[in-house]
């Protein structure tokens, strides 16, 4: 019962939040809604017994990613409404509705046809999720894990490099950049 209530609550909240992200004109609102949505998603992870992932979700998304966005937004004018010139609205809506319907049909197909019997896992007693994750991560997925680490490192360095290097030059040579942009 608790599970059902929790699932539906989180579902409604997540959909709502993401709806705001997609539809809001104000970037700040959108970002806040995104952060909220992420946290609600971690709720599903807890529900599904993936505590470790839930924590990671909160830490990475609501912490790191949102912080990054927040810093990023400092460069842009966020108080103003985002002006968006949306063309061919009909196409847009048709595509959206169609894709939504199709995806949902596919995902819900088992509901109406042969329903897949969920196999409830027999988790090893006395071993927590985090411990299990650790075990798998450092055995079966060791190499992807290492690669992911390297990737993150690369991303971090490149992020820093991209933004920082130009920062000093930018202030002095802003006009030139605009010209260059046109040339390009």
């Amino acid at each position, binding site marked *: 019962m608790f599970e059902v209530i929790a699932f539906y609550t989180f579902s409604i909240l997540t959909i709502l939040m993401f709806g705001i992200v997609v539809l809001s004109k104000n970037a700040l609102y959108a970002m806040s809604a995104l952060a909220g949505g992420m946290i609600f998603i971690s709720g599903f992870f807890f529900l599904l017994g993936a505590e470790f992932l839930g924590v990671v979700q909160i830490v990475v998304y609501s912490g790191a990613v949102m912080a990054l966005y927040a810093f990023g937004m400092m460069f842009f004018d966020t108080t103003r409404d985002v002006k968006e010139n949306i063309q*061919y609205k009909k*196409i*847009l809506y048709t*595509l959206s509705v*169609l*894709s939504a319907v*199709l*995806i949902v*049909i*596919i995902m819900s197909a088992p509901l109406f046809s042969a329903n897949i019997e969920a196999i409830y896992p027999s988790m090893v007693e006395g071993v927590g999720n985090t411990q299990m994750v650790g075990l798998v991560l450092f055995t079966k997925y060791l190499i992807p894990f290492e690669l992911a680490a390297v990737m993150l490192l690369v991303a971090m360095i490149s992020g820093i490099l991209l933004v920082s290097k130009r920062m000093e030059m930018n202030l002095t040579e802003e006009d030139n950049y605009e010209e260059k942009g046109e040339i390009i």
Partner: protein
Amino acid sequence: METYLYIALFAPIVGSLITALFAQMPKKICVGIFTSTLIFISFISSMILLNYVDEDQIVHVKLMDWISAGNLSIPFGFVVDQVSVIMMVTVTLVSTVVHIYSIGYMDHDESFNRFFSWLSAFVFSMMILVMSDNFVGLFIGWEGVGLCSWGLIGFWYKKHSASWAANEAFIMNRIADLGMLMGLFLIYWNIGSLQYDIVFAQIVNLDINVVTWIGIFLFIGAMGKSAQFPLHTWLADAMEGPTPVSALIHAATMVTAGVYLIVRAGEIYTLIPDVGLFIASLGAFVAVFAASMALVNRDLKRIIAYSTLSQLGYMFVAAGLGAYWIALFHLMTHAFFKSLLFLGAGNVMHAMDDELDIKKMGGLYSAMKPTAILMSIASVALAGIYPLAGFFSKDKILEVAFNNGSYFLWFALFIGAGMTAFYSFRLVMLVFFGEKVHKKLGFNPHEAKPFVIYALTPLALLAIVAGFFEQSFHEFTTQLLVNYEFTLDHSIALILIFATSAVAISGIAFAVYKYKRGGFSEKIEEWGVYKLLINQYYIPKLYKDGIMKPFTSFSKFLWLNIDNMIVDKTVDMIAGAIYGTGEKARKMQSGNLSSMLRWMVAGIIILLALAIFYRPMV
């Protein structure tokens, strides 16, 4: 004896090849003498072989294998038997005369050496044609003479009409050659060999339908070479070539190759009398048809050409009715007097500065007596007056026709004989006697060089006496050929002889009478018949407008409209469609990320729809 065979065969080609090396050099008289000598050697060898074969022996040699594939094996084999030796002697004799004559005739030509090279090559091809012991060997010679005839008709290649006539001759012959090839294929696939002896031995075992087809196909081949209707137009046009060529190729030798083929394949044709009758009918038709065109023509050489055509018709009548030896006999006598006639005409042409219109001549007798006498002899022989050669052979053919019960054929030939006599003497009268029209036109005729005249005498002699060899010729050739049995009463035969002679003499008399008095009036040219005849029954025109022009325009149509517009366009269209799709799809790549994302989603939708609605068969 094999040595003589090889000498007879290869002497001409040796001459031709050596001469060919000098082809581009200025005239060398020794070239002419050299080739003439070699041809003469060939003639001597042929005579020796004739003597040898007369003792009832046959020379048969196999030089080497030529083509062998599958079950097929074709050697270069040569046989000298009663039929081929007659042909060899005739060919080499006439060629020797023509070669010697040409030394004088081609005296001033810049391509003197080239001429002799071609001429000797022709003799070689003709020798292969007659000496081969199989059908494919015959076909080599068959095409070889076609090639040489092409080269010689178009010898003065600067003249448009000459090269056109050469091509016409070659192509017409090719049409017939296809028929002949089909005949060869049919023989091969039914007998498994193309050797004469094997084919003739086994032909009786075949189904009569097959034999009929073989006969028809081979005859189509013969029709082309011997210029039978409807493939006859090339022969008259071939007169564009130098006159010695006309004498050698288009009177004495090449055109008779068709007759030779029928005679050689006599064993096939005796099995199929129906086809034989058709051949005879066509021959009789051509005999009259060609003679009628000769009646009115004004071109010296064309008249003789039509006469040749007509005489070939006579030969085919004989061959078609099974009288092979008579066909061969007429072939031989005709070769003598017809080449004589042509060579005489060559003298006249030279005298008249290459003028060919007989209405512009007249009274040349005083200027060129020897030539006039020679040509008169030939004409009398051609008309078939006793005791000249033509009488014997031609009368025999008429007898055969009568004997066979084909009175209609006989009547046609009878009419033809009268016409022959008339046009021969029309020619003689207009050229040598009567009013001296040429004087008015400023010509200054002169007689040919003496050695040229002397060279012609053997022919003249043979034209006179050849007929008396009839009996021995009959005995000689029928050792190999099927004999022809006359069932005719002797008295009827005599009546026939008299009738034919009478019509010939009356034809001559009419011509002499009429042209002594200045010939027919101009009015005759208004007659429809005259127009029909002078235009050769409009057949060349029909070929030109009915075949050549449509062929040309249809070819152009195929190229421009089908090949370029349909076939190629289709290919280009496929390429264009692919290219165009790319060009259109380029717009998708607008550079706008947003629209690209939309495209991406559209793609996802399509894939999803596929995932839902497409169920692959499990």
